[in-house]
């Protein structure tokens, strides 16, 4: 067997709903939003996160939010494509960038982050992102503000300060004259971050975080290490290894000076950073540039090969929050020579670690001791490897997962209604948010082909996206006793309709803000065959709406309705291309055709869990309505669909539209008969056995086809009232509650 440069993903031995190993009841599959500013290098925090993700990826839905994500880094470490990646805005640069990055940027990121069951955040300033529930591992307070505040480099004549806002990979340059003011402002803002759960990676970090944030941080989860897969090679008594980013506080300069105090020690410095050139120059000036090697971009196997041969791992950073590389050195069976400060000292023991004051001579002495006495090195290495077995990534990942589960349960306890089970048919309504700002604008008689309307809503020619419109409609929906709303999202070759997307975002936000019980389930309306456009819509819904507390769920998944014209029937390339993004939804078709006998598989495979009519009055002549509706209802079930769906509609009339494609339709005008048509639909639904899971009303406001029930000048509130009575009857018969 070859030790691959790429680490395989860890298969999940546990079923999705099994209790976890910690005894905490598992809520099943979690939708986790992971937030980290950058995930493009293999530092300590990134490693901590990656090792957790490797172990969680098969039993949770995970989306990583970061300004920059290295796909190759994730692939190399076994993170599969099932873990979604979503971009965050870049850091600010230029004047006052540091202040903006610590104040405005987290707020911008908040708007870019979708809805998830729980958020798992790493590194500053993610604690300032206002999402809930959040488990946050800062790893360290912003050291620029606290313990390294007076360690910044002044450049040139001293008027410019070079400051490092970790984890940003480059320096910020600040005017010395305003430095203290910026730091004070940043510090005041920094302390307002208050995630549900703050976790430290060492007791030292916990104490620092407690002191900074004025709250007890007593949850400590040490990082782990892979104890398998290390390579056994003879030790090169001249070779010492240091791993870390090349920042001043990593004190690589101390190690180079130590090398210069030895006769033959070589130092492999593995890492990159802005100090690289300065350190190279230092090695040259000390005459050890032929013994100090700077190595970057090593793959995992190369790193292990170097560690396997090293006489010891050297580590000298200033108060490192933890220092995973020490554990890695231990697991590789290497003695540790390190400064006696930092979180890693909590896992070090004199049997295998020299913990020293930060003096080059002290390091040089121990390096030469190990060079002279290889047997001592061997004994220390064996002890180190044994000690490392107590610190596994599995334990770290399990403990973090337990914290996420607890955070989720805590949040759910605060929203008891979310746990209620469906006991009766849920009634939803087709909702069109495509109307522009007044008569003559989009869909308000803007064209005779498909924009013509013959009635005037009581609300006037409203703007669908405006908050006051949505507030009014939500009130109407609530008064009707509806359970959910189906905003339509039209997708053509150019992508999803941006206006409707904006309206849907507002709809959800307003529903949440007014603590409405109403749920939302989007209906995708694909026009054309652009897979990319549909995938774009699916990704956006998954990222920003599907996990919203007001989004409709069924069978543990968010519900996605499809306006199904049949144009994409048997288009298997289409189904294959959207499969990845579609996998997280329960799909229900509302079709212009009936489900196909027992042969629906030949048209849409097993894609849909439910299939009902969008416009039931157009399916047959008046005499055969119940018969055809019943066929539709039963055929869906016969095709193995588990989500029973029925539709009611008050009437239909599109004869005012001058659309040639509608010209040959058989049933373009179905009279409302003062509500009798609508009542007939309702009666059919109320008699269904078994009862449907979903009843959809076609429509609330499709004025072009006159299928609307929204109050108008002509009809008043008649159909709204009928709908309210209908939902009341359903509640009476089947019981309440979702």
């Amino acid at each position, binding site marked *: 067997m070859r030790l691959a440069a790429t680490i395989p993903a860890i298969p999940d031995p546990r079923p999705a709903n099994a209790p976890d190993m910690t005894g905490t009841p598992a809520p099943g599959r979690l939708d986790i939003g992971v937030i980290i500013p950058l995930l493009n290098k293999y530092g300590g925090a990134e490693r901590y996160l990656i090792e957790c993700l490797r172990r969680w990826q098969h039993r949770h839905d995970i989306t990583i939010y970061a300004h920059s994500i290295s796909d190759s880094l994730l692939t190399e470490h076994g993170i599969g494509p099932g873990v979604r990646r979503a971009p965050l805005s870049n850091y600010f640069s230029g004047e006052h960038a540091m202040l903006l990055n610590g104040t405005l940027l987290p707020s911008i990121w908040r708007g870019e982050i979708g809805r998830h069951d729980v958020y798992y955040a790493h590194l500053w300033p993610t604690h300032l992102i206002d999402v809930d529930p959040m488990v946050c591992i800062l790893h360290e307070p912003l050291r620029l503000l606290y313990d390294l505040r007076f360690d910044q480099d002044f450049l040139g004549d001293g008027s410019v300060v070079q400051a490092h806002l970790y984890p940003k990979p480059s320096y910020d340059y600040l005017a010395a004259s305003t430095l203290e003011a910026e730091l004070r402002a940043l510090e005041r803002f920094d302390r307002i971050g208050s995630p549900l759960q703050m976790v430290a990676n060492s007791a030292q970090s916990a104490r620092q975080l407690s002191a900074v944030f004025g709250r007890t941080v007593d949850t400590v989860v040490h990082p782990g290490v892979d104890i398998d897969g290390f*390579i056994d*090679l003879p030790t090169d008594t001249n070779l010492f290894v240091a791993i870390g980013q090349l920042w001043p506080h990593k004190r690589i300069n101390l190690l180079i000076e130590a090398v210069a105090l030895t006769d033959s020690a070589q130092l492999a410095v593995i890492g990159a950073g802005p100090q690289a050139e300065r350190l190279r120059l230092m090695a040259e000036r000390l005459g050890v540039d032929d013994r100090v090697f700077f190595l970057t971009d090593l793959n995992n196997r190369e790193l292990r090969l170097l560690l396997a041969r090293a006489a010891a791992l050297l580590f000298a950073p200033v108060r490192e929050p933890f220092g995973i590389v020490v554990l890695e050195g231990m697991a590789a069976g290497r003695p540790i020579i390190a400064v006696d400060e930092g979180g890693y000292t909590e896992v070090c023991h004199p049997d295998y670690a020299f913990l020293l004051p930060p003096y080059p001579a002290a390091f040089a002495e121990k390096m030469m001791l190990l060079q002279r006495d290889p047997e001592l090195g061997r004994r220390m290495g064996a002890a180190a490897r044994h000690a490392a077995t107590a610190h596994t990534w599995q334990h770290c990942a399990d403990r973090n997962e337990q914290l996420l589960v607890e955070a989720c349960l805590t949040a759910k306890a605060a929203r008891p209604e979310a746990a209620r089970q469906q006991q009766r048919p849920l009634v939803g309504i087709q909702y069109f948010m495509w109307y522009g700002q007044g008569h003559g604008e989009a869909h308000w008689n803007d064209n005779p082909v498909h924009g013509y309307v013959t009635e005037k809503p009581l609300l006037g020619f409203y703007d669908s996206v405006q908050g006051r419109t949505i507030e009014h409609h939500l009130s109407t929906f609530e008064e009707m006793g509806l359970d959910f709303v189906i905003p339509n999202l039209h997708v053509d070759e150019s992508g999803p309709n941006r206006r409707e997307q904006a309206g849907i975002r507002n709809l959800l936000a307003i529903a949440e803000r007014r603590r409405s019980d109403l749920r939302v389930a989007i209906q995708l309306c694909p026009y054309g065959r652009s897979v990319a456009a549909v995938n774009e819509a699916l990704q956006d819904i998954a990222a920003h709406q599907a996990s919203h507390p007001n989004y409709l769920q069924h069978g543990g998944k968010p519900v996605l309705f499809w306006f199904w014209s049949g144009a994409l029937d048997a288009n298997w390339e289409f189904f294959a291309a959207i499969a990845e993004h579609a996998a997280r939804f329960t799909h229900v078709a509302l079709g212009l055709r009936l489900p196909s006998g027992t042969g629906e598989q030949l048209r849409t495979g097993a894609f849909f869990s439910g299939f009902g009519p969008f416009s039931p009055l157009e399916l047959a002549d008046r005499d055969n309505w119940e018969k055809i509706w019943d066929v539709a209802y039963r055929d869906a079930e016969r095709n193995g669909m588990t989500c029973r769906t029925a539709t009611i509609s008050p009437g239909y009339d599109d004869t005012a539209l001058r659309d040639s494609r509608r010209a040959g339709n058989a049933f373009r005008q179905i009279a409302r008969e003062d509500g009798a048509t609508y009542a007939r639909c309702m009666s059919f639904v109320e008699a269904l056995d078994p009862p449907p899971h979903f009843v959809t009303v076609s429509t609330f406001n499709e004025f072009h086809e006159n299928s609307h029930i929204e109050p108008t000048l002509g009809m008043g509130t008649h159909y709204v009232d009928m709908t309210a009575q209908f939902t009341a009857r359903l509640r009476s018969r089947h019981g309440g509650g979702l």
Partner: protein
Amino acid sequence: MSAYGAVAAFQHPDLLLEGGGTFRLSLSADVLASDVSLVIDVYDLDDETHPRGHLGWWKFPTRGLGTTVSGRITGDAGHLDVTLDGGELADSWVNPEPVRFTGLSVAAVLRAKTTNAIVSLERIPAFASAADLANFRGRWNRDLSTPAFALAGFQPPAGSTVHVVASSIVQRDAVGRLCLDVYRLLRQNGIDATLHAEHCAPELNDIVRHPRDLAATVGPDDQVLFFASTFDPSLEVVTGLRCRRKIAYFHRVTDPRLLRVFDPELAMTCQKALAQTARLGDFDRLAANSAASVRDLIAALGPRSRWHADDIAVVPPRLLAGVPDRPPPRSPRTSGARFITVGRLKSNKKLEDVLALFAAYLALDADAECWIVGSGDGKAYRDYLDWVERTELGIPAGRVHWLGSIDDDELARRYQSADAYLCMSEHEGFCLPLHEAMLHGLPVFAYAADAVIETLGGQGLCFETKEFGPAAATIHARLGDPARLARMVEGQFGHAAKLARTMDGRGFLDLLGPGASPGGR
């Protein structure tokens, strides 16, 4: 300060202990202005490891010394002492254990006092007797008059010299061997020539001079032939010389990433060499060992360079005295195939992949053997290969034979008795062993690195990926198909023989001759 700064240089190429062990050193003017110490460091010539082969070191302050200093090495029974005329011993370490030796490596080292860094280092061999020394010098054939290669079709101006310059000249290294053969080619044609290198094999230090002497010895009618294969501080000196013509021959620089784990020092040197390559654009003529190297060179010269690929001559990096008519006859085996691979044990050769391919082959032919010819000074890579062979791949003992460095006759015997040549190298300039294997009638199976493809000239069998299972099955099938194997070997030999006929030195003579310049536009 001079270009070479503070230097302590021996005034003689060797030292005889029976003659009193006296040595003389020239100290450059910079020595007296520098804060350095002079250290005489002495090792067993055949075992330069500490402490086993280390006889000791003696440190002297340079303050008060003149530009020439004399000293003496005395001792017996495995112990030595070193004294310096007018120099006061500041510190020393003498091996308490006796070190038996035939010859010594005596180094004059200048070390910075503050940092203890090495500022300059020069070695000479030392022997007890003149007979031992002569025997040592005879390791390289010094008959320079017998014609071995092509005859020159030009006569350079009287009194002019061709100066061959390389970073290192040792016999067992391809670049060093080429330099020595070119030197032989020139001398057999009556063309005056010198050799210069920063480092050379100790048996050659009487004919290979240090490049610091170039400025003083190169005249206006002279030519310089510079072999660029790694970082060479003398490149700066060469580009500054005023002479008739400067020619650079580019061997290609190994990708440092392929070396950094097992030989970070060499990787760093290669990194510096890559940064230095653009300076070759200042030469009057350019040549390279392959079209692949030409592409690298053009890239390094940059888009604004006056050089175009067509202006750079491709000259094979080997001189051969003759070409065989046909490959030696061989009878293919049906099982127990014997594979051979030849080259320095360096990580860019990817010998771990040869082992992995061979391990896959063992699943098809349990009696197969793999012969690995070559040595390297890197213990780390050798340790790793051991681990790969035994632990990671679990290859049974006795299947892989590490033959180390072998002489040319033994190598020819191995080529003759092997069944196939394997090459998994990912970076080559030319890859001479492939050519040798083809001339010996060995089927070649190789990873498709660009220069490898070029040297094979469309012959052999190249794998575009390192999927060892399928590759092993392909090799097994080919070795079991005598008709196709014969066609493969015939095609390889035809190409190799054609290439070999261009290796008589004519290419180098063309570079040095008065003909149409292949130089830049």
